[in-house]
């Protein structure tokens, strides 16, 4: 295998597992260090630059960063990254001084954003400071999109959402609220320079089985019902409720139902419990609110008697792997299960709907009726129409919508400046040594032994009575500090300089997790077996030096490196250095070159 190119920015980006896993590539260790230093405002700004909605995401993010967290590979649990983000949002001061200036004199380009959710708002945030005149259309009377209509207030208080949405709208965005766009042609005819479509996946999937029509008065589509609750059209639900589905929407539905009068709320899901799409912590929260989750139940029919919904019949199944290793749900042969219900909420998935886009505008659609969108530039087959968020590549989550919004904003800016949208600007990368003395580094390299701290919750008796009362209380500052100290600072990178090494083995001997080996050069598959500890995690790279004086190479398995800096501390020739690596994805209007 070839020696690792220490000039390869993407190699080091991958080492920062959390940041790499984050769709928006938020510099996680950077803001966690700021939190540990008590700089909450700065930590918030680092987040805001990258993910636009730190307060929202600190409560509701799907947290792709946490399963990736290196800490989860050396002990039980990853760092509570998401909830630390909330700490920054909760304890920040006024961030106005950090906000970009919005030019009073515009650059003459007009952009339409359709849909007022996270993707469109991200585009607005990125383009408004560059002088674009931005028009945002949404069918509701407030911005926020699904963050407002689908995420219940007990998880995301309206004040938090309003603050982060309004901050962007205050950048001089022309809002066209209560305006449902029924025709894209109409918008295009208004001669915008570019149109961005961030209309999400607004259609809840229905369940067409026996009794659906007869029972329709008591059967609701989950996301529509949640929106009804959010806008206070729906204020109550009957005592016996079945929620169908195993995703996060189902969890939000059942917990909301508990607060609106649902006394006996059950979640019923086809798949086994472990395979449910909902995040583990959301399942836990539902169960904590006395909501049983019945898995392996396939809905057969709604039981309606005399026009009144009585309940639902289910077939019990179990998961079996077929000969191709594919999971199948086969009937167990048990008798049908009847579950009593006064109302049913269907939360079995969401779909896009593009009936409002005329098919003669040059925007190509695929066989699933999804627009053909470039996954890097988010441009459609019509050069001035861009997509982002759930509308672009199908339903994902808020953080993905934000990441796509950033990319679409770059494309729109390039397009409006007559530049090829495929000429993407490079990320902004800074690399600097953290060495301050023999045993001193500019980051805290003492590895905390603490286990993950639990976020306290408000009293259940109170939260179940008030759907606006937030359940999670967030970390207090002392706990936040301790949790922040669990971060391994993976962005402080171990940098090896071949020609300084005298092969004294000091780094190899001291490494607490046996990451470093000096060995004969071999192919990667062979090397992985020959190291001090086997390198079986193929997701994690090996850092391989060039040939050293004895002809051997230094091999470092990145997998469980604690970034404690002991290798660098025990190195007599400074062949190892701990360099902080700050990686910020490019933004619209900033074309930064890579500096190493």
């Amino acid at each position, binding site marked *: 295998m070839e020696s690792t190119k220490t000039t390869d920015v993407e190699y080091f980006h991958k080492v920062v597992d959390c940041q790499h896993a984050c769709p928006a590539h938020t510099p996680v260790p950077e803001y966690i260090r700021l939190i540990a230093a008590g700089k909450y405002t700065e930590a918030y700004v680092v987040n805001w630059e990258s993910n636009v909605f730190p307060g929202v995401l600190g409560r509701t993010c799907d947290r792709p960063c946490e399963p990736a967290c290196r800490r989860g590979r050396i002990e039980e649990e990853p760092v509570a990254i998401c909830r630390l983000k909330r700490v920054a949002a909760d304890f920040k001061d006024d961030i106005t001084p950090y906000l970009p200036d919005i030019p009073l004199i515009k650059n003459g380009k007009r952009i339409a954003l359709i849909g007022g959710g996270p993707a469109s708002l991200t585009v607005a945030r990125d383009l408004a400071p560059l002088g674009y005149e931005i028009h945002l259309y949404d069918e509701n009377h407030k911005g926020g999109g699904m963050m407002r209509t689908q995420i219940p207030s007990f998880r995301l208080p309206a004040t938090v959402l309003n603050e982060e949405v309004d901050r962007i709208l205050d950048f001089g965005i022309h809002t066209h609220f209560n305006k449902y766009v029924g025709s894209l042609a109409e918008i295009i005819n208004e001669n915008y320079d570019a149109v961005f479509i961030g209309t999400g996946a607004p259609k809840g999937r229905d369940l067409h089985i026996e009794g659906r029509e007869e029972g329709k008065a008591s059967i609701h589509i989950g996301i529509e019902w949640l929106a009804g609750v959010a806008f206070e059209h729906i204020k109550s639900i009957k005592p016996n409720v079945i929620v169908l589905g195993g995703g996060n929407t189902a969890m939000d539905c059942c917990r909301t139902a508990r607060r609106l009068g649902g006394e006996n709320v059950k979640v019923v899901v086809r798949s086994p419990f472990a395979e449910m799409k909902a995040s583990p912590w959301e399942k836990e929260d539902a169960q904590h609110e006395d909501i049983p989750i019945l898995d392996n139940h396939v809905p057969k029919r709604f039981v309606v008697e005399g026009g009144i919904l009585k309940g639902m019949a289910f077939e019990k199944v179990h998961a079996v792997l077929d000969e191709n290793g594919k999971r199948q749900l086969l009937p167990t042969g048990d008798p049908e299960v009847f579950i009593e219900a006064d109302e049913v909420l269907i939360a079995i998935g969401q779909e896009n709907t593009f009936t409002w886009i005329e098919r003669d505008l040059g925007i190509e659609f695929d066989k699933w009726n999804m627009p053909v969108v470039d996954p890097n530039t988010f441009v459609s087959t019509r050069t001035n129409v861009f997509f982002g968020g759930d509308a672009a590549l199908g339903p994902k989550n808020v953080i993905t919508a934000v990441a796509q919004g950033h990319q679409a904003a770059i494309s729109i800016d390039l397009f409006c400046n007559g530049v090829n949208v495929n000429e993407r600007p490079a990320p902004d990368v800074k690399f600097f040594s953290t060495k301050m003395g023999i045993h001193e580094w500019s980051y805290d390299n003492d590895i905390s032994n603490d286990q993950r701290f639990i976020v306290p919750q408000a009293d259940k008796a109170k939260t179940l009575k008030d759907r606006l009362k937030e359940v999670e209380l967030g970390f207090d500052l002392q706990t936040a500090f301790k949790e922040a100290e669990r971060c391994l600072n993976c962005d402080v990178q171990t940098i090896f300089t071949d020609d300084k090494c005298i092969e004294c083995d000091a780094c190899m001997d001291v490494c607490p997790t046996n990451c470093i080996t000096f060995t004969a050069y071999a192919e990667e598959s062979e090397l992985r077996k020959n190291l001090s500890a086997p390198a079986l995690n193929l997701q994690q790279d090996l850092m391989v030096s060039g040939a050293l004086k004895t002809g051997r190479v230094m091999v470092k398995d990145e997998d469980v490196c604690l970034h404690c800096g002991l290798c660098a501390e025990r190195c*007599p020739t400074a062949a190892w250095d701990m360099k902080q690596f700050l990686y910020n994805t490019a933004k619209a209007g900033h074309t930064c070159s890579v500096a190493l």
Partner: protein
Amino acid sequence: MSYIKPKFHHPLLPKNNLGYTRKDYEGSISTLCAGCGHDSISAAIVEACFALNVEPHKVAKLSGIGCSSKTPAYFLQNSHGFNSVHGRMPSVATGANLANCDLVYLGVSGDGDSASIGMGQFVHVVRRNLNMVYIVMNNGCYGLTKGQDSATADRGSISKGGDATLFEGIDLCSLAIELGATFVAQSFSGDKSQLVPLIEAAMSHRGFALINVLSPCVTFNNNPGSTKSYTYVREHNEALGNIDFVPVGNEITTTYNEGESVQVTMHDGSKLRLNKIDNQWDPQDRLSIISALKTAQQKHEILTGLLYVDKDSVPLHVKLNTTETPLNQLQEDKLCPGNNRLQEINVGLR
């Protein structure tokens, strides 16, 4: 600030037959200079004890004074330890060994501790063939007192101060062989593939086992002109051949050509396989190694590997016919047989 090793370890660390990982044989974090050869030797000791399935509580670490003698703090944190007076570790080891021969005695010393202040003790522990492993971490200078030349510095070797050594260096291996040592090896801290099996073999040897390990002092004696620098030792290292240590119960897996390989069965049944490079030399022939060492010296080569082994070695305990039961396990009537017995002995001496 990092003076404490993180407690986390690699989740896939292999375990030995006792269920221990290498981590269980480690010690506190080293306070020696970064890059010190001694730290590599500590790591080699850890590796050897792990591989040999040594029970940590069955080891006694002994040392004198010096950088080398600090190292027992950095390995085998669950073993017994005694940090003795400068150069007097052999006396303490002798006493401990006679009192309890159930333990593995692992002496760690330096060139100052063994070849200067402790030379008198060193030569006697060699000739008495005390059952112990005696590792000399030899860097040719007094690192702890700012790097003055030590007695093992080769004549003409230049230390960091810039002056060439005026006197002949003491070659501890030649000396030990001269004094009748039964196991003599020489190695280099930067070559664990050789050092680890040598330590394993030394621990299996019944009798005095000397390993003289060239261990560069990065701070005071790693400069051009020094004959104990990483670069010099690497360039002048003449390994006598590959060494494989095969513990009891394990099968020999490597094969060497007939005539080039020597196999020595140790007292405990473990085996040493040596792949010889030099045909003039036989590890069981004292004369051949003396000649090989002299020749190497003339050619400015450093011979490393197992230099000499006497598998029929008779250790001190056997020679003195002293009890093999540790004194701490003998009852009072055995330890102190009483006045009548004393009178009988006295009568026998009249």
